[in-house]
């Protein structure tokens, strides 16, 4: 075998064929590296055994940080640092602080979560030439399954190919990644 990681790439034509194939392929004891699809296929993450993302929890924590920051800022500035008499209202008029508190909460939550997403998914505008695309058609109309041959010691290449073929893969190729 050549150096680097060896992959077997199966190309599926239809979402349904792919969705039927995944549980069968996994049942054969094949460890699927990843599946690449042109659009979000519902139920695909469950079929592959992925747990739901924790990003919404992150969004909540970021939002809470925003709430605390906004209130601390306004109470600190207008209430403690330099109290101002504005129309005879209290120095800390909480109802008047609601709009900005809300906006800052949303600001922190949305940006915090979007940034966390980009980081955990490894998405960044630089170094994009190095990204591995198994089959370019996976962003057009094909559903691509990559199997890391080296991680499936119990099954050899021919066996893996026949499993893919019998489960509906239209094309099968090998790919080595440095």
């Amino acid at each position, binding site marked *: 075998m050549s150096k680097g990681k060896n992959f077997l790439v199966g190309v599926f034509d239809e979402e349904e064929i792919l969705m039927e194939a995944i549980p069968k392929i996994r049942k054969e004891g094949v460890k699927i590296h990843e599946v690449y699809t*042109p*659009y979000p296929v519902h139920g695909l993450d469950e079929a592959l055994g992925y747990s739901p*993302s924790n990003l*919404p929890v992150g969004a909540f924590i970021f939002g809470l940080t925003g709430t605390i920051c906004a209130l601390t800022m306004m109470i600190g500035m207008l209430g403690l640092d330099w109290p101002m008499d504005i129309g005879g209202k209290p120095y800390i008029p909480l109802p008047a602080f609601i709009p900005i508190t809300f*906006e800052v909460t949303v600001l922190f939550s949305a940006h915090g979560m979007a940034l966390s*997403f980009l980081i955990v998914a490894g998405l960044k505008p630089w170094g994009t030439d190095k*990204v591995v695309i198994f089959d370019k058609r996976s962003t057009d109309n094909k559903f691509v399954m990559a199997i890391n041959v080296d991680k499936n010691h119990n099954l050899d290449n021919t066996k893996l190919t026949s499993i893919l073929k019998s489960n509906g893969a239209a094309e099968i190729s090998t790919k080595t990644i440095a």
Partner: protein
Amino acid sequence: MQVTSSVRPPLVTGGKTIADVTADVCRPVETLPSKSWLVGFTVALIVFSFGFYCVCTLLWEGIGVWGLNKTVNWAWDITNFVWWIGIGHAGTLISAILMLFRQKWRTSINRAAEAMTIFAVMAAALFPVLHMGRPWVGYWNFPLPNAFGSLWSNFNSPLLWDVFAISTYFSVSLVFWYLGLIPDFATIRDRATTKIRQKIYGALSFGWDGSAKTWSRYEAVCLVLAGLSTPLVLSVHTIVSMDFATSVIPGWHTTIFPPYFVAGAIFSGFAMVLTLMLITRVLFKLEDYITIEHIESMNKIIVLTGSIVGIAYLTEFFIAWYSGVPYEKYAFINRAFGPFFWAYWSMMTCNVISPQLFWIRGIRRSILWTFILSIIVNIGMWFERFVIIVTSLHRDYIPSSWSDFNPTLYDAGVYLFSFGLFFTLFLLFAKYFPVINMAEVKSILKSSSKNDHK
């Protein structure tokens, strides 16, 4: 490939396959600009340049070149601001609120509508910034310690709430829009036939590979962003309305303003989406994606929000009489029968009467009627803000301060500048970015197929 449901009309017509979606949406990006695009872009640039001259004059001479005076100290500037912000609301409504309601028809129009939101908010933000007179000290809006001590900005003021609301709205909309664009940029990157295009769209796509794990996270993020954007969009126009509602000016000091402004915003926003989409679908041959069904759905929202706005106008009038406050009564009678009666009745005709035509199915499904009415609605919504702002101000409490308002060339010029900016950006977007969210449209192509009902 596409199986039609017997109950609902298909969302995408013409029996498109997934590959067709890619080809149709990428075509404008991958081919040379069409003649009509070039003509449109040139016109937009000319308007932009003339507007730019007016903005430069305004900055050089000061806001005295506008028609404002001591009594009418807010006029076209704030009218345009509220008008553009309102237009922006439709994009977020389509991408966030309709997403939460699982309205699948939104997928064909959400990309362009969100782009419209972003450019409209940019056009809107121009006006408060220019009205400062000295935009270079605009950072004084932010809570920074003042140079002579620690006097902070006034967090009780709706004008400051606006700063926070608009900045949050703009940046969150931009992020939401861009996240949606990433998978589609990857599609263009993978189809690229030239090295430069591959490099540019490769960088724009952030190295997206479409893996199941990333899609799963992506969907989680989009859902939460939609959940956050929904109250955000409602808060933005609520706060804009509070710029008026918290001041003690007859005609402004009303609690009905927040819901009334939000409904008006969605009303005018959908009208603008229709104006733009009716042109875009023909220009880029996207009639199979933006169908008569889409147009009809949007027209239904227009008739709903238009009626809410109509009821708000009548409620205002009733309350002015019922409150027994002489100033309030006078403000409303003056609106309808005073020197600006023509603006008031233009508003009533355009916003209350004309959208009622959409109760007729034939008109709702007619492209020509929709196009004409969408423009009429936008004219009406501009007059609504003009009526609220100018007629409430021009008759002050003391008759000796009563005044008139006459716009100057620079009032019109800066308004034109915002149009130039908006259309230049929108045309650039339509040419270089995928105008339809390919990934989402692909995901709904088969939603009416038999495989879905297993």
